[in-house]
């Protein structure tokens, strides 16, 4: 058995050896989570659901850094492919349009004929449009393609414009620009980043109106546009964490089976390098073997909001580490000596490396290498809640967590070495 010199001399370990991982420096963690390897190998670290089609995939630490995770999330996925073979496929008509699906043999003057076409008839002279929610999400990017045909027999209508979910008739709300048909079928394709969720409108257009082709046009009632093969492909998406795998070997994986409560890891196509909790995301409670104090939790986290009490984690029914509304880091535990221990001040949008030691009257709240000692309650740990706590009055985190390592023991002796390892990776202080 190897015993380090520091250990043999009973001294606090000062530095980690080059290349040593977190769990080599301090093994026997009860749970350990990160997007990097804490083991020294290449463990599976995260299971990700992409927003576009809800597909999921596991990724190792190297899969995160290599870009494989980001590529998976941003894989092109068709979120809507029109099917007008049996009807209008969910498109809603307005008071100024009438819709009919399943139009076959729709031919133009050039002899091109299409089946399974949507027929849109303008039912008045006012603006005419149809609309449907394709599942577009603000901030994500889409390629929209399709075909349309405005017969030359029309009085006024000769084109279409496809609108973002934004309100208002400004031409800037139509990322398609003005698409004109010369009496023949026209294919189109364009890409845009959505500014709004909601319905995407297909507006009938009139070139003769000049700079206002989406306006009203006297005599346009009865004009027709045919639409076929309309497709929305999501090309830049969001990714969410379904499982944050425990690297400790204890299989205490953090799982969230509810899509609406999963923290984000890829936002508008970009890897966040953290799990982003936005005030209503958290993992399911992880049951742990009960363990009396002392216990230690290392975290790298941030909050996006100052002056609010926001939980990073909970380890008992009323035991937590959190950002307090006093703008101080804090820990709290019930039991004998029940008390809050406040540490250093925090500001929003900045990472902090915390060493939280729950140890009754000898508790520690260490932030970025500094130490505040004091008292918390004496309850031990028996659960782990990540992104929240069970402590009343503490809201779910509105911020990011990069790493969380939990020990059912006092890790003061390894603190300096672990903090050196963690800080060298994240460059926090």
């Amino acid at each position, binding site marked *: 058995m190897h015993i380090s010199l520091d250990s043999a001399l009973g001294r606090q370990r000062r530095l980690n050896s080059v290349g040593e991982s977190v769990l080599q420096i301090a093994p026997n963690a009860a749970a350990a989570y990160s997007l990097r390897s804490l083991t020294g190998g290449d463990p599976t670290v995260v*299971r990700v*659901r992409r927003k576009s*089609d*809800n*597909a*999921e995939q596991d990724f190792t630490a190297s899969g995160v850094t290599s870009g494989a995770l980001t590529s998976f999330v941003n894989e092109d996925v068709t979120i809507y492919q029109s099917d007008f073979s049996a009807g209008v496929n969910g498109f809603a008509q307005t008071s100024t349009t009438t819709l009919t699906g399943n139009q076959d043999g729709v031919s133009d003057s050039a002899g091109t004929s299409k089946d399974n076409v949507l027929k849109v008839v303008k039912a008045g002279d006012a603006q005419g449009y149809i609309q449907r929610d394709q599942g577009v999400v603000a901030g994500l990017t889409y390629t929209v393609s399709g075909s349309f045909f405005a017969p030359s027999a029309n009085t006024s209508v000769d084109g279409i414009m496809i609108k973002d979910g934004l309100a208002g008739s400004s031409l800037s709300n139509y990322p398609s620009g003005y698409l004109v048909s010369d009496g023949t079928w026209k294919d189109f394709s364009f890409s845009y980043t959505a500014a709004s969720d909601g319905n995407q409108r297909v507006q009938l257009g009139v070139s003769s109106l000049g700079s206002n082709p989406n306006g009203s046009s006297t005599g346009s009632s009865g004009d027709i546009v045919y639409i076929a093969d309309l497709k929305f492909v999501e090309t830049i998406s969001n990714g969410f964490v*379904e*499982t944050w795998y425990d690297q400790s070997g204890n299989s205490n994986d953090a799982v969230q*089976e*509810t*899509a*609406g*409560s*999963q923290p984000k890891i890829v936002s508008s196509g970009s890897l966040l390098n953290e799990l982003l909790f936005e005030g209503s995301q958290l993992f399911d409670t992880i049951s742990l073997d009960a363990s009396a104090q002392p216990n230690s939790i290392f975290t790298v986290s941030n909050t996006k909001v100052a002056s609010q009490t926001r939980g990073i984690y909970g380890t008992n*029914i*009323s035991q937590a580490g959190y950002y307090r509304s006093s703008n101080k880091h804090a820990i*709290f535990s019930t039991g004998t000596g029940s008390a*809050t221990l406040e540490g250093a001040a925090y500001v929003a949008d900045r990472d902090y490396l915390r060493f939280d030691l729950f140890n009754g009257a000898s508790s520690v709240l260490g932030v970025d290498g500094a130490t505040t000692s004091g008292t918390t309650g004496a309850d031990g740990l028996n659960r782990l809640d990540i992104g929240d706590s*069970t*402590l*009343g*009055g*503490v809201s779910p985190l509105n911020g990011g967590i990069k790493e969380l390592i939990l020990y059912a023991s006092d890790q003061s002796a390894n603190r300096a070495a672990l903090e050196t390892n963690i800080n060298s990776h994240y460059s926090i202080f």
Partner: protein
Amino acid sequence: MLYLIYASKEAAIERADEEGKEIGFDYWIEDNGQGTRWLTYPDETIDHMWALDVTNYDLDDSEKSSTVDHYTPLPDPDED
């Protein structure tokens, strides 16, 4: 937000399961008990009913007529 109120947690989860299957979440596709299962999960109300956020659910007409736009959640335990 739109909510459906259920008398039991089991009934609310049954509806959440139905929506999860409809969406095609991984839990239902892979049939291995792993992966995302629900779009939303019910919360307990102050009168011990269960509120399911169905804002983005595909509701039938009967459900649409039964939605409420708010509920009072079960309060948290004591504050620190």
